[in-house]
């Protein structure tokens, strides 16, 4: 787990750097730190491909805004990743929130015990994007509330309340899932 404060990948070319220089520098950065960023993007979007698309969009925006970035480009990239995830993916997010309504009763292949960790990640993908982003920042990237607030451009209080709501929702969802599973087990045994 790499904390946000660790600034690997530099030194970065200056604001006046040409596109070629920026690409070389970013390729070096992605080789060193891209895995962690991609894992974060996958957790934010729910799939490998959507995660790659999100990371690519963030990299493109970084290239576009290079001259205007004041400070560490990695910090900008990380903020962009989270902002794009909670913004551009909103529409897909709406459908995904509604999808459980359409889900049919599970078939017999769902009767096996579900690993709780996998189940929690599946439930994580049902959370509103802002809550999901906060959970990923706090428990995957292991940032403090202040660091997470800086990435998301909000107050530490907002991070704290979103984390609390997100965890409460996960507990509630997992209880529902547990009850449904218990109900199915009972039906099976009767």
């Amino acid at each position, binding site marked *: 787990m790499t904390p946000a404060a660790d600034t690997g990948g530099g030194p970065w070319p200056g604001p006046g750097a040409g*596109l070629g220089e920026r*690409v070389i520098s*970013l*390729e070096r950065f*992605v*080789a060193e730190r*891209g*895995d962690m*960023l*991609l*894992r974060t993007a*996958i*957790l934010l979007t729910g*799939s*490998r*491909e*959507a995660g*790659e*698309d999100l990371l*690519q*969009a963030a*990299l*493109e925006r970084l*290239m*576009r805004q290079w001259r205007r970035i004041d400070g560490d480009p990695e910090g900008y990239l990380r903020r962009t990743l989270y902002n794009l995830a909670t913004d*551009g993916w*909103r*529409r*897909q997010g*709406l*459908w995904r929130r*509604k*999808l459980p*309504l*359409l*889900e*049919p009763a*599970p*078939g017999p*292949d769902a009767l096996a*015990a*579900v*690993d*709780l*960790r*996998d189940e*929690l*990640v599946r439930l*994580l993908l049902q959370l509103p994007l802002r809550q999901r982003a906060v*959970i*990923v920042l706090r*428990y*995957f990237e*292991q940032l403090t509330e202040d660091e997470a607030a800086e990435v998301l451009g909000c107050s530490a209080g907002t991070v704290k309340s979103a984390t609390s*709501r997100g*965890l409460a929702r*996960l*507990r509630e969802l*997992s209880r529902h899932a*547990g009850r449904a599973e218990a109900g199915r087990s009972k039906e099976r045994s009767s």
Partner: protein
Amino acid sequence: MSTGIEDLLREGMERFTVGVRADPALVRHAARRYRRRRLAARGAIAAGTAAAAAAAVAISVLPGPSPAPGAVHATDVAFIVRHVQRALANHDDYLQYTRTAPTFSAGYVGPSPAATGYLYAWSYRGQSRTVTASAAKAGKGRPLDESGTVVVRAAHGMTTTAFVEVVYGRKTWFRECYTGRTPRSDPNSASSWAAQVRRDLSSGTFVVAGHQRVGGVDAIKLVEKSNTPIVSVSGKRFRMPSLTLWVDPTTYLPVRVTTMWFSTLAGKTPLNAPVTQLASIEVLGTDFRWLPPTAANLANLNITIPRGFRQVTPPRSRTCPQGA
């Protein structure tokens, strides 16, 4: 479940993404996309300085027979995109009605294709209503969920938005309020759609792929030429994710948008079937109608709570202030 959820989550997230490697080619793809966007922006400026000439070109292109894909020049694309952007900026003149339907390829591990539904939405100047309805054989068209937003108070730079949701399966409903500097946006509102389409179009990666009859209109088809990799699913090749937009050639407002993306899962599916990798195609198609704001059309924005439904506490406990 009451203790250690954070640790379990952390382990789960580690497991979900274990072994993921970022391809350095991502940077080259992003650079290529950036260059195209810059070229498209220059093309749009050039089109702006020669508006009269571009208009003449457009008249000859738009109402005529369908040109072959790729036959329309970049300047025409910039012209069309600019007009779509402008039309969307004036969306407030219409009541927007959308109907969205997802379709899933074989191998999809979420809801079965037979259980998919439709999302209907109406939106006009800050008020919106969305209905999710089943498309399953049993109960086809039956509403599953209904929600809506309306601005109830705006003063001193702060806006209070009321949100109502009716859950048909549980026969319950709730109402909650959000107060902030900007109204709470509904992802299906006209302004959200307009912003989304404008943002997508500004990527500069669209090409005109001829005309197609959509919703009774000989629409212009704009296709996103994405740089993301081609994937093969069930023997078919797809470039993902991609967006296709059809616009009315007279108003330049969208008549249909489709978004296509795919997903893979490693480890276990949500139904716990052991797989190493599974790819599926999901297509989200939205049809648009831009209606005059007559009393009959505006009535579609109202939510009626069915008799016998019980009001419950909002999940986020955001009760509305008195009088709101």
